[in-house]
């Protein structure tokens, strides 16, 4: 025969069905969400990469052109921004007794990341401008098409990251920033830097 044990404890909430809990402070969801998003972004750029390799081999119209030097400077800027966002995360994680001082140093690092991120996007724009001056447009050659597609889409992702960083900073200003949110933002930002290094190597070897 079945036996009945003590009923489980239930947690009563105000409103009885009319109120939901927000995600717990230690929820892994933001980090998981970022990893899932990064998987999708990886797949997208993998598809573009395979398209580039196939396209390069399908016709005899592939055109090599001089790589804008500013792209290397941009790479340095983005890698530096990855360092600053990591500094922000580490400072935030090691909460000090002086909360005000702690927030200020985190803010400085986040603003630094924001400025470096904007500098990167501006630098990319300068690279496109330089290519346009050399009459290399989107449709000029298959190689330039892929160059613009890769760099513009990456820049759009970086701009998305900048918006995310602005959101994180606004939360920090309001004192409601959670470590898991900042961790998720930093993971995305590191990935953008990593992705850019990959794209730089890919474009450099193919174009």
């Amino acid at each position, binding site marked *: *025969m*079945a*036996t*009945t*044990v*003590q*009923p*489980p404890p*239930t*947690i*009563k*909430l*105000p*409103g*009885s*069905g*009319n*109120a*939901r*809990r*927000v*995600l*717990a*402070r*230690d*929820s*892994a*969801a933001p980090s*998981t*969400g970022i990893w*899932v*998003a990064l*998987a*999708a*972004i990886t*797949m*997208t750029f993998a*598809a*573009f990469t*395979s*398209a580039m390799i*196939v*396209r390069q081999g*399908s*016709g*005899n*119209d*592939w055109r090599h052109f001089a790589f804008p030097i500013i792209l290397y400077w941009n790479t340095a800027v983005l890698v530096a921004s990855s360092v600053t966002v990591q500094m922000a995360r580490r400072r935030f994680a090691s909460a000090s007794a002086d909360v005000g001082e702690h927030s200020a140093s985190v803010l400085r690092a986040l603003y630094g990341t924001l400025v470096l991120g904007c500098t990167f996007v501006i630098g990319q724009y300068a690279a496109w401008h330089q290519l346009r001056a050399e009459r290399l447009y*989107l*449709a000029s050659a*298959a190689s330039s*098409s892929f160059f613009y*597609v890769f760099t513009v*889409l990456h820049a759009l992702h970086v701009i998305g990251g900048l918006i995310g960083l602005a959101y994180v900073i606004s939360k920090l200003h309001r004192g409601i920033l959670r470590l898991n949110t900042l961790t998720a933002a930093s993971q995305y930002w590191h990935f953008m830097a990593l992705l850019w290094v990959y794209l730089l190597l890919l474009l450099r070897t193919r174009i």
Partner: protein
Amino acid sequence: MHDVSTNAAHHHVAPQGFLRKNVFSVDHKVIGKQYYGLGLLAVLIGMGLSWLMRIHLVWPNFGIPGLQWLSSSGAPAGVITPEYYLQLMTMHGTLMVFFVLTNVPFAGFGNYFLPIQIGAEDMAFPRFNMMSFWVTFVGFCVLVAAFFVGDGPPLSGWTAYAPLSAIPGTGPGQATGQTLWAVSIAIFCVGQLLGSLNFITTTLDLRTKGMTLMRMPLCTWAWFITSCIGLLAFAVLLPACILLILDRVAGTSFFVPSNLVVSDQPVNHSGGSPLLWQHLFWFFGHPEVYIAILPAAGIVSHILVNSYRRPLLSHKVIIYCMVAIGFLSYMVWGHHMFLSGMNPFSALVFSFPTLIITIPATILVLIWIGSLYGSNLQINSASLFALGFISMFVSGGVSGFFLAQPSIDVYLHGTYFVVGHFHMVMGVAAIFGMFAGTYFWAPKMFGRMMNETLGKIHFWGTFVGTYCIFMPFHYLGLVGNVRRYSSFVDDFMAPLIPVHKFITIAALCTGAVQLIFLYNLIYSRFKGAPAPENPWQGTSLEWATSSPPPWDNFGGKTPVVYHDPYQYGIEGASGDFVMQNSPEQIPTAREDKKLI
């Protein structure tokens, strides 16, 4: 696993305003119903288009009243031109594959029931969830807008093969219509990616206490696996659409080859690869088959086990088979391209995994059928449609064995055999899964019972009708009836017109039977008998809350899970089932390890 019972900082109170409550809602239940409604609208349009095509095929000179208002050039005096036939075909396929087969079983039911079945109060990212629906809705509007621009929608088929799709001016609808198609699908991809992100994160992180992965119901597993497939598949279709749009509007040459002449005019592109589009498209396209069918398979498993009143032969093997199907679905895309001119060795490489993927699919079918033995089958509309799903899945799947052979596919690929195959195994089977899910879950979603008599009439009419439509397609294909032709009046296929007439009449009748479903759904939504909390005596968590569930799903109580999801026919238990959240101890728990 995240225990939601701790660390709750504060709460989101249910919105009161009409717009926030019913339109721009972050509630997964509302979003699920929105997806379902959008799918219903799309299927009505898609079915209407198939009627127009079927009527034109057998009565090519018949003027369909009012059609000239939709397109005066495509259907002058209501008579469909060959080009407009292809345009209707393109829109039928696109609407059905993307906005029906993907939307309803996955996004519709999944949004509504996945969080409830794992004991969560909502999706992990409710705002993204709302955004995913509205992005999808915008994609739908952009696609439908193609009917009303220039010379109408595109004619390149739902696969939009390049270079036909990549060059404006290759036919009616290939200008603005084709661009709208590509933009629509790109938008749709974004919506699906957002949805998949939510499904995966919610499943991994928001399960309630006791809800281990193996305790998740089979449909939750199906939605989870499907979201993993969708995440990678739509992430490939999106770049393909971006490149296609650039070819069309920016003059790039990703898919357009050199020396192409269209309408006696040389095309100003060079070096592109039409095969590249096919590779990118089918890398998405074949997993898309499983994006449509796996949620339906999960729903059907969930319903069958409830109807059998006993566990399926193995819960775990079903999960492993679905995972295997999801994994293998990425290795078979080339079997859609046997005639594309690719290396014959590649055809062999793609043929092998195509045959391999039938093994887990066959195991699924054997478990569904084998579990019938010794069961106490409850016949109702939901279980009938679930059994009908198996029938369609097997009937359509068997023809897949033939098409997986490159040498046979060479003959059959361009014929109605393929049309019959994919309509049965992917289209109708998935739609049977949707119907099964609707009859099973409508009481929970709307708080009203659907009429069972009407449901059974609907089932038999649909079941017989779909066989009358799609089985003859196989015959037509075997005798060489090519697909995509708009009429067969004056050629060698003219003797086949009587078969086509039979199919058309069957299609019209089967379509009319769907009006019974529509009436039943709408009538019972408002006038049906009030649904109890657990009308089917189910065991999973959606039956542990009111019908319909409150804003937070469980009325302020966090469910705790004690059992595997399908504890039916338990000897010694107080009833013939034990719910997942019941603390009742089960003396002879039917664990999978004891069954296999």
